[in-house]
């Protein structure tokens, strides 16, 4: 059984004020397996964030269903941890306070919380910063805290919406390498939204490519690149290049491209 299963998802926004209808998602189906890293990619405004928000339970779909471990979801919950583009750290809590927030909600005793926290701080390289407040960290460190905060509650699936979009290019590459390392180490199930083709290929096992909104799944591209992955090695890698190229083609060409059968999988 898949951890996450999306069936014929459909979303039409209704503008509260004008009553206007905005179709965002046409018909989207896919599934994510245990321990898999899946990215979703598509043109701007095609509904990627909408898909993630529906899975997270922040908004309701107009049609279709979301099954988590075979059961329909209702509202947000700790079984689906979210890493936000805006970090969404609590400024009034220290690094430790932010990291242990989810554990505290689960009524885990303080001592145990701090033991778990130490482990995850180590994992994301934030040991020694426990007492700092978020604004005293760099952007990259803040997002590492955002990732650790979710990892610590061990959700069934981790949802990430363009988590590295607001840090500088070099920090982003570092964060991407850190994320693959952590993923290999812990094997969380990750659903990752991005608009960056290289990022999607670098990180994922599979990349879901959406069409222009109201979106459908245009193709699901398998990324057959061995791990551990590092940028200095991959940048020249022919499989990496071919896969990226294939996705760029899918994104830029008119709808008939999806009928071509020479997929990137070699």
């Amino acid at each position, binding site marked *: 059984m898949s951890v996450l299963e999306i069936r014929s998802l459909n979303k039409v926004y209704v503008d509260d004020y004008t*009553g*206007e209808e905005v179709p965002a998602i046409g018909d989207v189906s896919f599934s994510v397996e245990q321990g898999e890293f899946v990215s979703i990619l598509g043109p701007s405004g095609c509904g990627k964030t909408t898909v993630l928000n529906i899975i997270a339970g922040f908004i309701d779909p107009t049609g279709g269903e979301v099954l988590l471990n075979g059961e329909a979801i209702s509202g947000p919950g700790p079984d689906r941890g979210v890493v936000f583009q805006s970090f969404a750290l609590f400024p009034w809590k220290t690094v430790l306070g932010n990291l242990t927030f989810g554990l505290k909600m689960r009524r885990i005793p303080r001592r145990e919380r701090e033991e778990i926290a130490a482990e995850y701080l180590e994992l994301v390289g934030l040991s020694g910063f426990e007492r700092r407040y978020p604004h005293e960290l760099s952007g990259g460190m803040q997002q590492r805290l955002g990732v650790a905060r979710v990892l610590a509650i061990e959700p069934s699936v981790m949802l990430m919406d363009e988590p590295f979009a607001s840090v500088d290019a070099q920090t982003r590459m570092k964060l991407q390498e850190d994320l693959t390392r952590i993923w290999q180490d812990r094997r969380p199930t990750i659903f990752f939204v991005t608009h960056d083709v290289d990022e999607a290929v670098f990180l994922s096992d599979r990349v879901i490519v959406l069409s222009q909104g109201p979106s459908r799944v245009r193709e699901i591209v398998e990324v057959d690149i061995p791990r551990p992955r590092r940028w200095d090695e991959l940048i020249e890698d022919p499989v990496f290049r071919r896969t990226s190229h294939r996705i760029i083609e899918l994104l830029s060409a008119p709808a008939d491209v999806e009928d071509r059968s020479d997929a990137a999988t070699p």
Partner: protein
Amino acid sequence: MVQATTARPRTHVLSRLTSAAWFVFPFLVLLAVWVIVLDVFEIPERTFPAASSVWDAAVAMTLDGTLVAHLVASLQRVVVGVGLAIATGIPFGLLMGLNRAVATFFAPLLRFSVALAGIAWIPLATLWFGYGEGAVTFIIWNSVFFAVVYNTTLGVGQISEDLKRAAATLGSGRVRLLTEVLLPGALPSIVTGLRVGMGYGWRGLIAAEIIATNLGLGYALFLAQKYFETDVIILSMILIGLIWLLTDRLLLAPLERRTVRRWGMQQGVE
């Protein structure tokens, strides 16, 4: 955002109507509570007037012209006081924002004065200008002036150095810099200052009129209290509330929105 359908104007009007209804509804409830409570507890007119008495007072005072006289007197003072404050406050604020020396000299005094502005000046104002027009106008001027100066200075200070340099490289002289960059750049802050200052000014006006005049809404309150005319008191209070609400919502808030939001500048809105 996408295709504007024909359904749009109708729902638009409808939603405006419902929100207007929702705005009026609480006041109707309040009115009902007023009528019922007075009736059930048999509260004497001397303590709290019946809604009908307030209405009668409004009609009577409108007919004999006193209401208009009070209203006109108060509004006139506000217009003159605020006009003077804008005419003096903005140039002074710009000067402070531009000149370090002036700013350093006046800054502590300014902070002191902003904290005091308005009502605290009533004793001194009446001493200097005597009871009457001069003192009241001074109070309004003073409430608005300090708030406008303070916020203009703040606004000019927040204009980025790059913007000034950009204007300079595009060939603007000192005067042009003032009119094309500094004034519009500081405008959102100035409007905020105006809004806050007028809040103080309006209260100051009422207090000053109670203490120092023989015409105006504040004076009407004072006179009514002397003769226990609760109906006139409540009427004046309602008018005071209405006038300020209308000024703030129809004039100041839209002005602030138009400058602050339109230009996407962020500013504390109180």
